[in-house]
């Protein structure tokens, strides 16, 4: 199959601006995008730089943006992605490029993964032999253990796009794996760590990450598990992130009291009743909303029919969390 490859080229050493170079490749229908890049490098331009290692989707080294989608080059057949005879290959987004298709993962991924301390700290003295865990105890975390740290979920993350400091779904998937490992002794400390600013509560839970993971590990679902576990443990905020707890508690208390959300109360209590600067910040929005009838009066929130039944459900669910 004859295909035109449009490949991102950039060499900081020659001072030229990034550009796309065009190559013609002829490969069988079974060929992958990585096969195409290798043919270009071996037969047409030995200066083309790209990463590749396992060639079977197990190492995450060849994460690239192929025809505008984050994919693993070794696992994607040309025939599956080619559009009008063209395959466009670029580095993933939001990342410093070192040369051509080689990028710097240090700040983008490794630093963030290290920040969640994704290693197990045993709760008891390590056994002399293997630390044997029953299969059913690890069944839930197996999915996250398959993560190859390709970074494609972070590449598609709507928050990282605008805030490079957000820890991101890849690191939070690693955090999930440690939080739910029965051998770990740092359970609550981990939940506090990921609840600091820039952590799990900064996620918009928009489910973009699920669509970007090439292995189907559903990082957003893993992240929800971490949040739910933090809530179960009463850890709804890091030591430097008190608004998270106030927001959650206010939301919960409002639904518990009247069955539905008291939006005005939520805004006030999330800022904090004694946080004068925070409350003052709300004023312009409230002043704009009042004449439009869009600022519901806080605390004078009528109870919905069924509020008592909902309160009973919440009470019971909270008791079973403990």
């Amino acid at each position, binding site marked *: 199959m004859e295909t035109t490859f449009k490949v991102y080229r950039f060499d900081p050493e020659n001072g030229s601006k990034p550009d796309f170079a065009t190559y013609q490749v002829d490969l069988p229908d079974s060929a992958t995008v990585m096969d195409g890049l290798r043919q270009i490098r071996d037969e047409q331009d030995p200066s083309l730089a790209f990463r590749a290692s396992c060639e079977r989707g197990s190492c995450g080294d060849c994460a690239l943006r192929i025809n505008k989608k984050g994919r693993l080059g070794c696992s994607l057949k040309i025939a599956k992605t080619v559009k009008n005879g063209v395959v466009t290959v670029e580095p993933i987004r939001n990342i410093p490029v070192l040369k051509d298709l080689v990028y710097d993962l240090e700040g983008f991924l490794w630093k963030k993964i290290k920040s969640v301390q994704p290693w197990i700290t045993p709760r008891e003295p390590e056994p002399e032999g293997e630390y044997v865990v029953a299969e059913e105890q690890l069944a839930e975390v197996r999915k996250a253990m398959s993560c190859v740290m390709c970074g494609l979920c972070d590449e598609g993350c709507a928050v990282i796009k605008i805030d490079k400091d957000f820890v991101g779904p890849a690191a939070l998937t690693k955090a999930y794996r440690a939080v739910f490992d029965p051998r770990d002794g740092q359970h609550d400390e981990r939940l506090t760590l990921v609840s600091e600013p820039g952590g799990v509560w900064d996620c918009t839970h928009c489910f973009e990450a699920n669509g970007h993971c090439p292995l189907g590990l559903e990082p957003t679902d893993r992240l929800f598990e971490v949040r739910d576990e933090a809530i179960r443990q009463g850890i709804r905020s890091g030591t430097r992130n008190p608004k998270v707890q106030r927001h959650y508690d206010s939301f919960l208390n409002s639904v518990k009291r009247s069955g539905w959300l008291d939006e005005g109360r939520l805004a006030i209590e999330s800022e904090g009743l004694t946080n004068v600067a925070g409350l003052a910040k709300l004023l312009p929005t409230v002043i704009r909303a009042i004449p439009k009838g869009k600022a*519901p009066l806080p605390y004078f929130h009528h109870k919905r*029919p069924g509020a008592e039944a909902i309160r009973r459900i919440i009470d019971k669910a909270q008791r079973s969390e403990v």
Partner: protein
Amino acid sequence: MKYAFYPGCVSRGACPELYPASVKVAETLGIEIEEVTDVGCTGAGVLSRDLSDPINARTLAKVEAMGLSSLMTICSTCQGVFTQANHRFKNEPEYRQKINDEYLAEEGLEYKGTVEVKHLLWVLMEDYGVENLKPYIKRKLTGLKVAPFYGCYIRRPTSIIAPKGLSGRKTYLEDLLDVLGAESVDSSGKSKCCGFPILTVNEENSMRMVSDHTGDAKTKGADCMVTPCPLCHLNLDANQPTAEKRAGTQIGMPIIHLPQLLGLAFGFDEKEMELQRHIVSTEAVSRQLEVSIRS
């Protein structure tokens, strides 16, 4: 077909214009709805699922007790939370049974897993039929350039929200705009997060999302944006002045609720659709509609 109607918290709170607009649209089209009143907030993805799943199972059990099998929402977030919870209830019978036994039995309720939850947008496109809308269009929205803005939870997770066979859900807004005579403007934020879920925790990021999305729609030439989600509406409309200030730019992008846009096409005027309640002026929309009528 009759639907149980779940208006959600925001359509009776900070977006009070949404509720009457939705009811007027349903009445115009002859869609029979009955509000399910004695039920709670979905949890909006904020409350832990340990708490929100039993509350939502109770709502769905109430719908069954009304003798109905469809629940209509008017909020992408309510829709998403219900769809995900309902997916668990339908696919994990033991989990559903546990919730029935532990939480619903004492009220004499049981959720059997028979309810389909559908946003008004899905009801129109899948049940009512887009062709059947045509006789009700009294005012073609010709010339009005509208940027669709879906809201995350009516798009993702794809495997549950728009699985095989229902992948058309990804373009329902564009398809509907086409029938109403409006021109779709493809803005980059169309299926992205509006930033509302992190408004409290990280206001800076939230406002950046608002200015990026509304700014891009403006750059692409949209007269307004339309959304099926009142939470997206709150952030994109009520917080747009704050986002403009942070970004140091003037945007002034009107944000229209989906039922309001339908209402305008069905011949209701701007006041009947309560556009005057919006924070960002909707005059640009009115002006364009005037032009459409004259031509």
